[in-house]
């Protein structure tokens, strides 16, 4: 059986990639997708931990797994709202460049 540490390591790498993506991509869509990657990295960690805790008691293990479902649902809701705003912006600016969103400053 693969040790939990490996899953967690993988998840943290995914999380880091997501974070770097947020910082480096200029397209709002790509930024958002990077965030999704980070959320799913967390989901991976949760699942891995849930398996680790499966010996400790049914509720403990299950709660981790159910949390993943809730987070998935939340991510989906975020997509809905985020894309809505994005579309609205795109309609007026014809661009999704986040660096263009710098008119309010100082």
């Amino acid at each position, binding site marked *: 059986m693969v040790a939990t540490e490996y899953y967690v390591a993988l998840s943290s790498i995914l999380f880091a990639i997501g974070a770097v993506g947020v910082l480096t991509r200029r397209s709002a869509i790509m930024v958002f997708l990077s965030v999704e990657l980070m959320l799913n990295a967390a989901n991976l960690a949760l699942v891995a931990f849930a398996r680790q805790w499966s010996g400790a008691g049914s509720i403990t293990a299950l709660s981790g797994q159910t949390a993943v479902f809730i987070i998935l649902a939340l991510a989906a809701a975020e997509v809905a709202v985020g894309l809505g705003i994005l579309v609205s912006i795109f309609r007026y600016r014809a661009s999704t460049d986040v660096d263009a969103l*710098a008119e309010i400053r100082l």
Partner: protein
Amino acid sequence: MTDLISLAAFAPLLALIGALVNGLFGRAFREPLPGVIASLSVGIGFLLSIIAFFALAAGEETRVSITLWPYLQAGSFELSLGFALDRLSLLMMLIITGVGFLIHVYSIGYMHGDEGFSRYFMGLNLFVAAMLLLVMADSFLLMFVGWEGVGICSYLLIGFWYREKLNADAARKAFIVNRIGDAGFLLAMFLTVTTFGTLDIQAVNEAAGALVFGSSVLGVIGLLYLLAATGKSAQLPLQVWLPDAMAGPTPVSALIHAATMVTAGVYLIARVAPLFAQTPAASAAVAWVGGLTALIAAFIAFSQTDIKKILAYSTISQLGFMFVAVGVGAYWVGIFHVFTHAFFKALLFLGAGSVIHALAGEQDVRRMGGLGKHMRVTGTTSLIATLAIAGVPLLSGFFSKDAILAHTATSELIADYGNLVLYAILLVTAAMTAFYMFRWYHRVFAGEERFPKKLRDSLHESPSVMTLPLVILAVCSVLAGYLGLPEFAFPNWIAHWLEPSVETPVSFLHLSTSLEWLLIGLSVVAAAVGLGLGYWVYERNRGRLVARLEESMLARLSRSGFGFDALYRAVFVEPAEGTASGLSSVDTDIVDRGLRAGASPVGLLARAAALLQSGYLRAYALAMLIGVLVFALIVSLSGVLS
């Protein structure tokens, strides 16, 4: 008896009421009324003082305390305002109210027609009230109330004709110089409290008597009181204000700057005689200050040309004599000279006032002369006063001055501090006094008429309201001395009278009768030399010698008042003004700017903080990520370290 003595306590109140009435309603009164009110208030005070005086003389007790009301009182704090009427203070009261009354009456004539008539009498009455307070006080604090009070009245009256800048300047100078002395008085009180725990004069005197002879704290207290006294009595180094103070109306000069206020310093030292008797050092300082002042002022008086300034320097010089007296431990002698001086100096000033009145304001003796013929009463009375102050035997000044000389020569208190040198100085000064007073009289009343011819016809003797006081004062100037005939051969009333008030263990060398007569003879010689020299220089030599000496160093030194004004201007006034304006710019430019500069980094930081908000989303994300990474780093490091 006590009740009769206590009547005197109403004297200052009466004067105060007089001042209030004139101050509030004076402008509504017609001319003589304010003067009458003022004179009456002082005159009644004089009567009360006389009653109290005789009551005290007749009674058993030598001191009556009257408590007015508690002043500073809280818990064991206690300071009641109260009067102490004893032989010394009652004598002073007699002088103040008596001479004061005469001068008030004189002023009715002198100030005739002045637009500030009622204001003048308000000031004069207020002065009498304050001066009475000063001498009647039973504590240093109340004495200080009077002390500052007379200073303020002096200020008001010197600057009476305030629209002349010179007069206002003179008043200001007098006030400020006096304030220096007052600061000394304050410090003296502080040290008195910390040393004795009380400000009650009698208690301090008793406690001081119990302290070690010559203890340094007593010396310091003595020196501080001396500082106070030099301010009020125009002694070195604070004498500079008195000549300028002549800017006030002449009766004011007579009352305040000759007869009463300026003697407050002498009174103060006599009042704390037991304290000074315990400290030869401070006493010697008093005596030496007095001696040097007497000499220098007499020297300056030689060359003055203002009829009043000559008298002012004479006053300073005579006050020097008094200081010597109280400095050598002869306290009653000091008061005795205060007493006689009050008459003849007031008389001299009033005479001068009469002259100025007659000459329509002329004050320069170079434009006078020969006035005796035109103003017989003024001339005669002035002559009496001149002879009295010159120390001509059998007149009052002779007795008091001789007593000072004799006691200086025989003082044991300051025997270690060169009392014989001091005696020599005083003897010379006595001769000088006779000389310059002769000059004064001669320049004004005798010799050729140097005033403008057109004045000649209008020349007149002053009205009787002015001459009557002159006559009374002249009589006193003759007789006052007989109250204090030389002790060794004659009955001396004043020494006996004052003894309970100024009793100290100070003793004087007991001389043989012939030596005493020798000392008297020396005094007579000094007066004679001075007068004779004066006669020769001004009558026989017709001033030619003087004219030749006019440009000599000494003459210039004398004319410039020994250069004190210039010196003080350069050493104190200008540096002080410079410091003031310098500090003023330091305050706005350095202190203020400095604090503002201290706050300026806040402004820079604020702009920097605003700049952090770049507007770029990815920069914000970076900041968040850095935050999280730093968190993680801290946690991991702590994990590794632990």
